[in-house]
């Protein structure tokens, strides 16, 4: 029993963090908002060089061949830095899905794209988000379509790979300028079948778990940065002749957020470990993690905005870059209430 990263994992995460501090400061996140595709192809290449993109790609395909635990460590850092690149879609969703399809009917294509991802030469997205996540009035959406090279479409009929140029894309802009959403249609003739209907259902379930766990890891990172910004501001801003961080209302608000984060983080680790080890509790653990992380992020955004006051309400301050990403990821592929309900269902099923 050891509920902690090992030194390698810590070191890798530390290096990625240093990378982000240098290559992805808030100004870079801001630049991505107004860029053509919402992220930087150049930084994508650097992420590959660092080994980040290949973390889950098998070694023989040019990757590092590690699993969800290492991924969780990296995604927390990516959240902390609000990295605009589609790491959730490509690293946490496409890579595991392609890995699973690497021995199926579309093995050749799957392996090819895994290698391209590890090399930083491909951006792969997965969609559409299932109806239970997008809400009844929303259409089914896919992220980062304009910048993706390929779309994996996972439905109950199978998993297919479609080159972006063969997709019909209706772009929808989101509140977070780096989230480029789209409604997607495609010509079946242009699609490569990676898995048939039988395997697809299992894949879809795993995909949802990966999405939940991956977004939870990002949310923990986002939350800790939101908290850090609030702590910093509270130590600097003075009102009534005192630092506002010396007021108990501010202290207690922020310590509650710290608690939510400290509870969510080990839950993400456990979910990642379960996924990596195909544990019986993988789905449940992923939902626990997402429920906790989404709540932590919502609380962190709310507290941090309130502590910043009007300056936090501007688009000039960096806070909104983290806040808007948090709101989006908190409900993407299932909000906290959905995942709590899923946890309860699985607890009941277990006792039956």
């Amino acid at each position: 029993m050891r509920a902690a990263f090992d030194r390698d994992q810590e070191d890798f995460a530390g290096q990625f963090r240093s990378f982000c501090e240098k290559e992805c400061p808030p100004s870079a996140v801001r630049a991505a908002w107004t860029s053509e595709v919402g992220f930087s192809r150049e930084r994508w290449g650097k992420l590959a060089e660092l080994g980040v993109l290949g973390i889950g790609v098998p070694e023989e395909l040019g990757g590092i061949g590690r699993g969800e635990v290492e991924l969780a460590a990296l995604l927390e850092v990516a959240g902390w830095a609000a990295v605009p690149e589609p790491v959730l879609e490509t690293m946490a969703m496409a890579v595991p899905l392609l890995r699973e399809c690497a021995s199926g009917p579309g093995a050749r294509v799957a392996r090819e794209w895994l290698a391209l991802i590890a090399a930083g030469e491909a951006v792969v997205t997965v969609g559409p988000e299932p109806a239970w996540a997008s809400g009844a009035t929303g259409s089914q959406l896919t992220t980062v379509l304009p910048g993706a090279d390929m779309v994996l479409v996972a439905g109950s009929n199978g998993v297919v790979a479609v080159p972006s140029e063969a997709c019909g894309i209706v772009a929808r802009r989101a509140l977070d300028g780096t989230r480029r959403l789209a409604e997607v249609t495609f010509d079946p003739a242009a699609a490569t079948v990676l898995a048939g209907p039988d395997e697809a259902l299992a894949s879809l379930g795993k995909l949802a778990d990966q999405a939940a766990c991956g977004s939870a890891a990002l949310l923990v990172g986002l939350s800790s940065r939101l908290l850090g910004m609030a702590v910093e501001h509270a130590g600097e801003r003075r009102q009534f002749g005192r630092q506002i961080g010396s007021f108990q209302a501010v202290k207690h608000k922020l310590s509650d957020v710290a608690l939510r984060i400290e509870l969510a983080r080990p839950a993400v680790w456990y979910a990642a470990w379960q996924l990596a080890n195909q544990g019986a509790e993988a789905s449940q653990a992923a939902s626990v993690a997402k429920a906790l992380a989404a709540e932590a992020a919502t609380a962190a955004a709310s507290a941090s905005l309130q502590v910043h006051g009007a300056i936090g309400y501007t688009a000039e301050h960096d806070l909104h870059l983290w806040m808007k990403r948090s709101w989006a990821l908190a409900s993407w592929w299932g909000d906290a209430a959905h995942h709590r309900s899923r946890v309860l269902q699985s607890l009941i099923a277990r006792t039956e």
Partner: protein
Amino acid sequence: MDIVAENLAVCQICSPMDFRLTPEQESFRAEARSWLRANVPSAERGTGPLPSLDTPEGFEAHRAWERRMFEERWSVVSWPRSYGGRGAGLVEWLVFEEEYWDAGGPARVGQNGIFLLGPAMMAFGTEEQRNRFLPAMASGEEIWCQGWSEPGAGSDLASIRSVARPGDPEGTWVLNGLKTWCSRGAFADWLFGLFRTDPSAERHRGLTYFLVPLDAPGITVRPIAQLDGEPGFAEVFFDEVEVPASQVLGSVGRGWEVAMATAGSERGLSLRSPGRFLAAARRLVALYEQVALCDPARAERCADAVARAWIEAEAYRLATFATAARVLDGATVGPEASLSKLAWSGADLAVHEAAIGLLGSSAELLGSDGTPDGWLGGFLFALAGPIYAGTNEIQRNVVAERVLGLPRG
């Protein structure tokens, strides 16, 4: 049989509790409803919705709507007829607001003037000032922005450092300093705010309330983009801005009292009428019904939040009518206004958070014009509620110390 029963029989001074409108109030409601339903900009009639009032074209479109309302005396129903109002009572005003928001009326671009400066001017202004400013304010001809906050004076409003020194000729003033978070500041015509006229005085003493045209020489307006990306507020720089004596509201050095009367309006009854939140809560219930049809599991998960939010809005409506009754009985709204601010800002957040939950991840989508509209726009706006008009932390302090009597410190 007993003294109480006797008392009940003899004392009929006050009128009994009655939540019905009087026939006069009902006919006022009917008139307002009928006018609003026929005139509020709407998609069906091809007259709406108006673009965001934080864009140049939206600002002018909203100004035109203010003028339209003013022409038929619906812009400031509770003001005296001489300034363009109808002299309506408090209950009538609340009823008008219910109808306005229920009809889908647009945000009031003139609200800072109408609801914050207007009442202060009626209480502290000279007759010349009232005649000069109030009708133009009510008609949207002159849109006002507020100049309360400064970079070092947000929640701690008394820390104001912008100054006004006596000018030449005598009686005039020269303003220097910086105001920030001036809502509507990007496109407004005038600004009202506090400046320090006695540099030796501390905190809330030695301040004076000024009215300043934003096109005066020496003024620079820097629009600031809000969370929705639009310049909803601005920084206003004052560099040797000359202001005549006629643009001082109230006495020199007594600006704090004038401002506090205004702040009371903002937090209290007049800025955020329940009608606005009730209308949003009704739309929330309709959204719930839509979602229940196509995604019953999600609707079920959100049901309690929807009910809670509607109840918060309804409770704020009822509590406001109770406050109105006290005011009509002769009481003044004091620190209880802070309870009101906590209530409406909480209700607004509850309604919009429930809607965001019902919408799921599609809540993040921008409108067709690339700006947040509908529920998302409302959610962003609701987030500002606990911050502006005195943060909710300040309001809780006020409630604790001045309503409950807990010790300061």
